[in-house]
């Protein structure tokens, strides 16, 4: 076996391959570079969507016109929703950190289809560009809400076709990433990496990928049908031609409910990575957490009707969907309880990522538990399509997945960029974000129960106090987020050099240099134990050298087989 380690000592950031400079990125097949390209693009869109969110809050500061006209407001919440959902929250953790970390954590040199990986990045970019073009062409920015409900989306004079087409392309990109991950996890695990030795992040991604593959096509065809209806007047959904708007809603939510678990499962995976690292002990209930990811993914297919409790769906159906909805709480609860139990008898080291995770557990629980109010039939009829729902989904999406995205950025920052940020400032930013977040969104629960409908440009005067409070919260949140990103950006250029394993993590990515070399490993490691074992090594990083040391290396093969 040749020991050509030389080229492997260069980090993937510095490595100069066939293509130099910017082309070295745009034509790269390296999963790590593709991950970073996703990061850049996603952050860009995230900033745009956040700015739109802030504008909405400004408009809601006073009743009547504050800074914009109704048509503008309607386009802004549509775009805010579309960008946040399709361009930020769905790809954020899988496409960025999944791409970067997944192959390393399972002991592979890359994903199984690197070209497909690059291709799905390009699809993502094309989708993003189409979304932006849709703002300025046709009748102007789409104004349908991110749900594109028919028949409004067929009738609207705005440029809905382009916006739905953008979502279609983005869906395709998401599918390809999913396919790539599933095949990679099946085929490229290092020797000894059995299914129950996979890090829990991988389990999260695995469950997510299945949803991506088996749910996204449905929205693809649904959106394509909207385009056809608009362009050619084909009668499929239009009630004027005999179409049934409720069937559209079924198809839309068949995808979009599972999609909320596409958003949260990778985030939950990261929670399960960060907690054992900072508690310095094995995770509590590994198998339960792993299996509950699959459980959530499966039950996620059974509950979409809870978005249609007031739509005129059959009573039987409403009862069935309500019952099934409550079942999701079980596997989610199992995860929450196991996470908390992981802290028990640990030796907890407090670092920025852990603060975010603790915040996540609290905020996500609030969001999830209010989801139960929405899942119960009697209460949902009252609060559906009010700010109660807006509060719920910001708590789970932003407070759940968004906060975990920040946690993830802090956790793997040293690994990805080889730099360390100022931890004190990171913790301060985290605190500000949590305070701002709750002031921004908690009043929405109250308004919602009082009867403030969502997607309202204007409101009755009795709601103003709460709206003002909420808007003030958004300013606090903005400061926290800007501060947090500022801290990370600063570290990117001026940060101190990061060690290989700054947190004392036990998974494979912490065994390779920061930033990792081009092909991650100069030799594929052999795995001999679970992912979060803290008191003994569970990886043999250079099996061939080990082999020379101990004749025949019977030990390794025994350990590999022992599982």
């Amino acid at each position: 076996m040749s020991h050509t380690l030389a080229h492997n000592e260069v980090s993937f950031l510095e490595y100069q391959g066939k293509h130099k400079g910017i082309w070295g990125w745009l034509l790269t097949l390296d999963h790590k570079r593709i991950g970073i390209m996703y990061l850049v693009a996603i952050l860009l869109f995230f900033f745009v969507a956040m700015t739109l969110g802030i504008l909405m809050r400004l408009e809601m500061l006073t009743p009547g016109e504050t800074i914009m006209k109704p048509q503008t407001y309607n386009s802004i919440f549509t775009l805010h929703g579309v960008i946040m959902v399709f361009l930020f929250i769905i790809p954020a953790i899988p496409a960025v950190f999944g791409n970067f970390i997944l192959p390393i954590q399972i002991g592979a040199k890359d994903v199984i289809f690197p070209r497909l990986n690059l291709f799905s990045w390009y699809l993502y970019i094309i989708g993003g560009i189409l979304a932006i073009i849709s703002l300025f062409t046709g009748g102007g920015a789409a104004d349908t809400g991110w749900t594109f409900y028919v028949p409004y989306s067929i009738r609207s004079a705005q440029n809905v076709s382009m916006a739905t087409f953008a979502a279609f392309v983005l869906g395709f990109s998401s599918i390809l990433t999913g396919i790539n991950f599933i095949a990679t996890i099946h085929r490229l695990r290092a020797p000894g990496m059995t299914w129950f030795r996979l890090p829990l992040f991988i389990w999260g991604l695995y469950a997510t990928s299945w949803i991506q593959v088996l749910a996204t096509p449905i929205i693809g065809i649904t959106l394509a049908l909207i385009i056809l209806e608009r362009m050619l007047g084909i009668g499929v959904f239009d009630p004027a031609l005999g179409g049934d708007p409720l069937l559209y809603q079924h198809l839309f939510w068949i995808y979009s409910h599972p999609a909320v678990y596409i958003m949260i499962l990778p985030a939950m995976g990261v929670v399960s990575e960060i907690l054992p690292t900072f508690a310095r002990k094995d995770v509590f209930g590994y198998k339960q957490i792993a299996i509950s990811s699959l459980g959530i993914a499966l039950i996620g297919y059974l509950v979409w009707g809870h978005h249609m409790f007031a739509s005129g769906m059959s009573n039987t159906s409403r009862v069935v969907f309500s019952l099934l909805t409550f079942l999701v709480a079980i596997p989610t609860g199992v995860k929450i309880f196991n996470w908390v139990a992981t802290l028990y008898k640990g030796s907890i080291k407090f670092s920025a990522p852990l603060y975010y995770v603790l915040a996540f557990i609290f905020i996500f629980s609030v969001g999830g538990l209010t989801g139960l109010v929405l899942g119960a039939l009697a209460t949902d009829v009252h609060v559906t399509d009010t700010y109660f729902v807006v509060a719920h989904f910001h708590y789970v999406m932003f407070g759940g997945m968004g906060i975990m995205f920040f946690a993830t950025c802090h956790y793997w920052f040293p690994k990805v960029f080889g730099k360390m940020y100022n931890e004190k400032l990171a913790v301060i930013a985290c605190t500000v974000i949590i305070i701002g977040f709750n002031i921004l969104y908690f009043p929405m629960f109250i308004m919602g129960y009082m009867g403030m409908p969502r997607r309202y440009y204007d409101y009755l005067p009795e709601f103003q106090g709460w709206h003002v409070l909420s808007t003030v919260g958004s300013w606090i949140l903005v400061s926290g987020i800007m501060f947090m990103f500022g801290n990370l950006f600063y570290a990117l250029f001026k940060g101190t050099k990061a060690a290989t394993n700054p947190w004392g993590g036990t998974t494979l990515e912490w065994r390779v240099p920061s930033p990792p070399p081009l092909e991650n490993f100069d030799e594929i490691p052999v795995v001999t134990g679970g992912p979060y074992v803290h008191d003994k090594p569970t990886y043999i990083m250079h099996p061939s050298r080990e082999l020379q040391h101990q004749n025949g290396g019977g030990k390794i093969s025994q350990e590999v087989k022992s599982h």
Partner: protein
Amino acid sequence: MSEQGKEHAEHTSHHPTYGTYIMVWIGLVALTSITVTVAGIKLGSLTLITALTIATIKTLMVTYYFMHVKFDNRVIKIFILVCLIIFLILWILTFSDLSFR
């Protein structure tokens, strides 16, 4: 890794012969003509059921032989099953609305 090695070995060994393929094809064409004939006789609601049953049988034949699922390893079979189960769920739950409206 040994698992992977085995799969490789399996892969090249048994594939059906030309004869099997042609037999399957004859079966498929025969089934097609049966559906068309059955549809000609007015069977009422049975028409749909027979047509779909026959289509399902044809699909099984195509996947099993032409697509070599018969010779694939377990993973692919489980995958297909998962996909079909999900698809079935979508039907059942959608019709929990449509058929009780």
